[in-house]
């Protein structure tokens, strides 16, 4: 048990140390990096299987009892996220084998990738609010460096906005954690869930929840706080923006879900309705932004923002518990949260795939601007089909995973009579379809522009072509995962529903973390 929870954090650190030593030898670095990532994937699968069988698993780092030492907890949501992170990491490592240039690898591309993985897995598994801050800083710092690795103009400019806004968010997060410790005197999240209501300061608790909402909102890029994302995500190489797209914002979303289902559940009427409103605004602004861009990866960046609106929509719909706490509402909220978990899984796979494909298109055509692209349907039928799978899944076309995710959210929303948000979700789904077909029409269907290197068998085009084989392997794998998620929806959604149930009843989390505080809690009931 101890191994399972420590490995996702320790393994990337060890691989990072080794690859830092091997900075000079490129091929050795790649082998170690790939082996490390595959090991991470195996560990993540083992963790998910154990958590699925035995329920929430908790280990105290250093062997000190629950609220005092740092606890590592894996409930189904965290285990699923770790698995998705590992899967993405493997895909990106294979992809970057062919697409990352020599200089970047000489300056620590692989160690940074693994430290980012350590930060992300640490954030998913930690059960301590300050430790979450530290792991956030780990993944933020490695994302700063990965973003600026290579030092091109666009990267540096995008990085300035990215760094400033994220550091502001860290300062607010630190202040929030400090105040939380000041009021409750504990840092362990499970203990907080017990002590914060005990302090019976609902108004102060709401203020703190707002601070955390702002801090995590900037990291998760929700409505008024997402400006850094479209400004910086399209500047680094495709492999880097692929790993960013699938992970960084999802850690923010995970943090919001964790905090607003475990700690700040006292004033659901206000906080969660606010989240619902923000989710609607995020969806709309994101997709409107995407509809007007005309560069491949900028459209995808704006889509990340819009899709995050869907993810926190499920959480926001918990607000209906404030009005009617009937059995039907609880079942619908459970379905909503299950749908959110499934949506996150679906989106990570699809979004990474789309960014990887944009990388291949850019490598073959030299640019990402839609006007200068075209003719891929004729020249590269395989790539067109590979693009279709994630694009149509993102747009919500059945029977792919995107449809089921939106369908479950809409079904839960209708059961809870949240008609406004359901209407917004459906319309935004259509606008997503519009911008996806915009890419399809411009990149694949429209005829190749005259001067494009596409058909000319120039040496440069042939050189670009030979690396593409290795880049297509992860794309095919991720496309298969999307199709598998879509077709085998039955059992997979069962797991998501179980994760939703665990989020619905925080008591499960608290009992798993500190068994003896469970008795005290029962005693206090």
């Amino acid at each position, binding site marked *: 048990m101890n191994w399972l929870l420590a490995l996702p954090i320790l393994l990337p650190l060890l691989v990072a140390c080794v690859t830092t030593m091997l900075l000079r030898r490129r091929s050795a670095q790649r082998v170690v990096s790939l082996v490390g990532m595959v090991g991470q994937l195996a560990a993540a699968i083992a963790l998910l299987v154990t958590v699925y069988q035995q329920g929430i698993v908790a280990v105290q780092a*250093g062997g000190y009892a629950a609220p005092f030492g740092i606890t590592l907890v894996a409930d189904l949501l965290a285990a699923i996220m770790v698995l998705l992170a590992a899967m993405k990491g493997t895909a990106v490592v294979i992809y970057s084998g062919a697409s990352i240039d020599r200089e970047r690898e000489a300056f620590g591309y692989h160690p940074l990738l693994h430290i980012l993985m350590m930060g992300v897995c640490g954030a998913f598994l930690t059960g301590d609010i300050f430790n979450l801050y530290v792991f956030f*800083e780990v993944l933020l710092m490695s994302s700063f460096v990965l973003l600026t690795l290579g030092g091109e103009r666009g990267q540096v400019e995008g990085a300035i906005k990215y760094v400033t806004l994220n550091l*502001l968010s860290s300062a607010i997060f630190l202040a929030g954690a400090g105040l939380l410790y000041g009021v409750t005197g504990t840092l362990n999240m499970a203990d907080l869930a017990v002590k914060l209501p005990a302090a019976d300061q609902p108004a102060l608790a709401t203020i703190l929840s707002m601070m955390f909402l*702002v801090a995590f909102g900037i990291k998760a890029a929700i409505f008024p706080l997402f400006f850094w994302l479209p400004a910086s995500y399209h500047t680094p190489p495709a492999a880097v923006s692929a790993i960013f797209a699938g992970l960084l914002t999802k850690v923010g979303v995970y943090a919001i879900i964790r905090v607003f289902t475990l700690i700040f559940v006292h004033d659901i009427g206000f906080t969660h309705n606010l989240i619902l409103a923000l989710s609607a605004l995020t969806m709309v602004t994101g997709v*409107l932004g995407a509809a007007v861009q005309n560069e491949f990866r900028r459209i995808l960046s704006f889509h990340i923002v819009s899709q995050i609106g869907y993810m926190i929509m499920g959480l926001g719909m918990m607000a209906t518990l404030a009005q009617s706490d009937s059995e039907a509402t609880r079942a619908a909220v459970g*379905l909503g949260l299950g749908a959110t978990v499934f949506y996150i899984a679906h989106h990570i796979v699809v979004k990474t795939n789309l960014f990887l494909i944009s990388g291949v298109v850019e490598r073959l055509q030299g640019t990402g601007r839609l006007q200068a692209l075209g003719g891929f349907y*004729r020249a590269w039928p395989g790539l067109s089909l590979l693009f279709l799978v994630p694009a149509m899944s993102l747009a919500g*076309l059945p029977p792919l995973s995107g449809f089921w995710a939106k369908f479950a959210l809409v079904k839960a929303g*209708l059961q809870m009579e949240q008609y406004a948000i359901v209407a917004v979700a459906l319309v935004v789904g259509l606008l997503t379809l519009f911008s996806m077909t915009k890419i399809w029409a411009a990149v694949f269907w*429209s005829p190749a522009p005259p001067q494009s290197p596409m058909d000319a068998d120039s040496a440069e085009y042939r050189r670009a072509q030979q690396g593409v084989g290795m880049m297509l392997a992860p794309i095919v794998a991720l496309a298969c995962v999307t199709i598998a998620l879509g077709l085998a929806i039955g059992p997979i959604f069962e797991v998501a529903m179980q994760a939703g149930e665990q989020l619905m009843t925080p008591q499960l989390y608290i009992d798993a973390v500190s068994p003896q505080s469970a008795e005290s809690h029962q005693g206090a009931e």
Partner: protein
Amino acid sequence: MMLLILAVFLVAMASPAVERLTGRWAGIVLALVPLSLFGWFATQIAAIQSGAKVSQSLAWAPALDVNLSFHLDGLSLLFALLITGIGTLVVFYAGTYLRGHAFRGRFFAWLLTFMAAMLGLVLADNLIVMFLFWELTSISSYFLIGTDHQREAARRAALQALLVTGLGGLAMLAGLLLMGAAGGSFEMSQLLLSGDRLREHALYLPILLLILAGCFTKSAQWPFHFWLPNAMEAPTPVSAYLHSSTMVKAGIYLMARVSPVMGGTQWWFGVLTVVGGVTMLAGAVMAIRQSYLKRILAYSTISALGVMTFLLGIGAAGAWSPESVEPEMALYAAQAFTIFLLAHALYKATLFLVAGNVAAQAGTADVGHLGALARAMPLTALAAVLGALSMAGFPPLFGFLSKELLLEATMKQPVLGEVLTAAAMLAGTLFVVVSALIAWGPFFGRTAAATAQPARETPLPMWISPLLLGAAGLVFGILPQRIGEPLVGPIVTGLLGASEPVAVHLVAWPGFNFALLLGLGAIAAGLAIYACRTRVLRLSEPLARLERWGPGSWYDRALAGLIAIGQMQTRLLQSGYLRNYLLIVLITALGLIGTAILRLESLPIAWDWPAADRLRWSYEHLYLLLTACLILMGAAGAVHSRSRIAAVASLGAVGYGVALIYVFYGAPDLALTQILVETLTVLLFMLVFYRLPGTKQRSSPALRLRDTILCGTFGLLMSVLVLVAVNIQLQDKISDFFIAQSVGLGQGRNIVNVILVDFRALDTLGEIVVLSVAALGVLALLKLRPGREVSA
């Protein structure tokens, strides 16, 4: 049934390979698949007629009430036969029509995917599975319309079709979900048994309107019809198959499927009859105004779909005035609907394929330039005549029977009977004009202008398909009883929701009655209008202007509006100014925390500045006050300083002041670290600032004032929060454990270091990782320049 659909999907995926292998014979090889399906469904006719239940079910996602359940009954059988029958001929026809086309393999792939999806749609019993196939038909129609995607017009038409049907589809998804929840089950078979439960439900009207939105967009009813004429950009086999006989009828199918449970109310009668009627007339009028063959057929298809919706509507007239209804009025409407559906599918597919032949051979599809093709293309001309006669409703053909029943159904209407009959008459007349335009003009009319190249008869597969369909129309017309009746009976029973099978007797020659007279009158009027059609075109000029402001333009305006809003919003929010981003983040933070504070009834702040002996108190804390002043001056210096050195110096002052505070409140480790870190930071600042320019005052005073106010309030907010937190202190802090166990468990006397290295070692581990990444980052930033040769 499930296996059949799966088989067609697999063949669809394999068809690019099959097409490359079989080359010329691809059309025939691939046509075998729908043919075998047609055969299987034909064997089911007897079973269905005897009322046997054919259904399969497989659990797929129980948590979402979704299971793969399929059910075959009269209505779905007729549709299945249509899909596979016409499908066989279309695939056979397309084999030669598209010979030499670059993407013929992918065309077959999407065509067969569409066929499988359409089959799935009509056979599905679970509402969600039906919606799944519904969306698949939309996406496959997108790819089929965009077959020759090099043309901008084809891409735009494909997108328009996808968005309009997509919007309707999403509305319908919400409607289906509500219906499933209201009706208690997501299986259509159970829903049909729930009787009046849906009709009386509170949400009946929203459910009805949402589902009808889906049906009307798919079946191109009046406000949403504009995508169908544009969809004619697709190659002719697609138009013949999708946009005339199968896909556009999906909406009609769903309305027919749902009518026993949702139909029969005043809303149902009103909406369907009005929309159906308007579509019927508008489509017919616009059809005669067109000059291209395929667009004429497209508008006449819209009009035909209007007729079917109209028939479904008037079937529910009983609800309007229950007392004066004659029992067999609903029966007549259901019969008319079924016969019209079958007849229209046959003759419209024929005429589309004929149009394809004409366009292929004569090089142009403009009716004005075509003439006297009969001699060159006798067989196509024969098929054209058969199709046109059936459309116009001449006696021996099946179309005649459907027009008869249509007129009888409208005459028997208790309410507004005369108006409805007049509308049906007008539509019939315009149908005659259209059939004359298509069959008489191009084939038998005088040669208006020289055609591009000498037309000669199309190869075998291209004339055999329309001929077969035309002949089927003739055979059904002559012997409706033996062939039509086993199919029509089960459907009519289903439509009326009757428990025991309804006897249906169709006769080729219903004898002289008022309906026959009306029919002949319509034919005569139609031929008259055709004769003087140039004058009629001038008369209907104002209508054309109306068309320009019609729904087609609403779609373009909506799209342009969407883009405009998007641009405005992006310019406003994603402005590129970092300070605007920070401003918005700050305002959001203030807004959120502010609203939370307003909900705070009492602000628990203890004001511990003793009023009595302030002087003694301040003496005691003299050092603290001095350090506080030092920090405040440092902060002010950093804000207002002109030179970089002064700014860095004031930053240093703040750092050392904070170190002093740590010293005052018993934190030696902290103070040491703070001093060392502060020294290093100032050193780094000096190294970097050496090269950056001086700080010029850039922003306007008004801007600076606004920023000061906002930041001031945020600072005030933070101070208030600190004071509130200080006053609400729970007693048992976890640090008591660390103080007690530091020597015992941690074996160290410096509690802070024991916590750092032992109790919370994970924090420190993360911390040194951050440090090493920062170092790597600095190295990469300073050493790695694009283009500069790296001395690695």
